[in-house]
């Protein structure tokens, strides 16, 4: 049988398309990633260890983990609440809420950061009041967390809304008709049905929360050892021409991203059917 199926391209075309795609991935993704790790270990393991254990780097790592540890749970709760409201209920203004959830995706991160400076900064709307009461938001942890929360808040909701809409309301109605309270219904029926999608959304949120540069850069103030997160610290080291240290910290951040990627792939592989409904 020499006949091709209608959608089959000739072999030479297929092969060259695959080669082009692989080459593109190699140049755009694999090469830079390899460069990060080679540069990071160019001066050997001791130098790498020294670069990541130096006090300012340690402070940046701790701050990044702390910011993620605060903003990921916040967005997890918010995302679940918002998707539950949108997918399982009808109310006026629902489509407006859905558009608002997407807003951080369409706004440049720098603008998101600036908004908080305008609100809470020394010359901002709430600035004088905050100063009188000795509350520091901009150039401090609260500002960094706020900016991170803003930038990462669509991830969980975006993942869950299509999933929950595809699952419909039947099971919830069944639970209610069987005498379950609203909370029991949520805990025993809704939550177990979305757990893998939720975990997936949390991973995406976490990856972005640790890697966010633009918005955090505006509100952080770049105080070494105090308000520098890992991405900001990498930029500082780079600007100081301390390339090997910059790459060492960068390799750590890239490593965290790679772990996220591996977990994501495992999730997709194990629970792909459930996640498909979420549009990924």
């Amino acid at each position, binding site marked *: 049988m020499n006949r091709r199926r209608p959608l089959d391209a000739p072999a030479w075309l297929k092969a060259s398309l695959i080669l082009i795609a692989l080459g593109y991935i190699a140049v755009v993704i694999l090469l830079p990633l390899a460069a990060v790790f080679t540069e990071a270990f160019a001066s050997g393991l001791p130098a790498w260890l020294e670069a990541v254990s130096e006090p300012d780097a340690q402070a940046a790592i701790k701050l990044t983990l702390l910011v993620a540890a605060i903003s990921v749970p916040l967005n997890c709760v918010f995302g679940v609440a918002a998707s539950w409201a949108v997918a399982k209920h009808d109310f006026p203004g629902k489509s407006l809420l859905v558009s608002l959830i997407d807003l951080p995706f369409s706004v440049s991160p720098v603008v998101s950061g600036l908004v908080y400076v305008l609100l809470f900064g020394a010359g901002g709307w709430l600035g004088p009041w905050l100063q009188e009461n000795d509350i520091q938001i901009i150039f401090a942890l609260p500002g960094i967390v706020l900016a991170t929360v803003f930038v990462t808040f669509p991830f969980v909701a975006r993942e869950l809304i299509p999933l929950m809409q595809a699952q419909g309301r*039947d*099971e919830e*109605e*069944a*639970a*209610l*008709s*069987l*005498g*379950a*309270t609203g909370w*029991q219904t949520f805990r*025993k*029926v809704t939550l*177990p*049905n979305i757990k893998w999608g939720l975990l997936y959304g949390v991973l995406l949120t976490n990856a972005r929360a640790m890697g966010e540069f633009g918005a955090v850069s505006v509100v952080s103030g770049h105080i070494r050892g105090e308000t520098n997160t890992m991405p900001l610290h990498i930029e500082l080291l780079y600007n100081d021409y301390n390339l090997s240290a910059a790459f060492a910290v960068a390799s750590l951040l890239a490593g965290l991203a790679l772990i996220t990627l591996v977990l994501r792939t495992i999730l997709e592989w194990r629970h792909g059917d459930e996640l498909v409904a979420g549009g990924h």
Partner: protein
Amino acid sequence: MTIEVRTVSKTFDGHSALRQLSLEIPDGTFVALLGPSGSGKTTLLRIIAGLAYADNGAILFDGDDVTSIPVQQRNIGFVFQNYALFRHMTVAENITFGLDVMKRRVRPRKQDRLARVEELLSLVRLEGLGQRYPTQLSGGQRQRVALARALARKPRFLLLDEPFGALDAKVRQELRSALRTIHDQLGLTSIFVTHDREEAFALADRIAILNNGQIEQFDSPDAINAAPATDFVRDFLD
């Protein structure tokens, strides 16, 4: 258990689903709500269940006004067209759900709950399938599980929304007679929604024919056949 629907109206987005509809269902009867799509039969069933609320009018169970009582406290059994089984629970967990969520002080003991599961599995003739998951069952088996689950709390009556709609003809036939047998065994007042004339006439003691949010006729199958009350009923039966 008698059910009384008193001048109930319901509007969706300016479109009337039910208009001043009244209906009285005597104790122990097996009633079909029959009508074309859009006639309001599912809306009526959901309002009786408490899954939707009427704009006007009242619902009475045994003379008690339950109009503003939420679905959880109405103690009804509801069977959905698409089964609505909890996909992450086994058959046994599905059936016992209604008992598990009861307040501790009124909840039966664990062994009693398990015994109830076995009893219901044998009632719907699914003995030994308690540990399966819904996806491992056929459509007919899933609907039997849904039926068992709805009966677990010994509801005051049973409401079924197009219970055979998603099944093929042979399974439908089987499940129909199973449902009728169970109804006769338990003597439970039951209402089922259908758009299938033949099904309504084969199964029900009394049929309410709905059109355009109103009841055209509510009578026994024989009486409807003998004397259709309106032109609509006559046309619908032809």
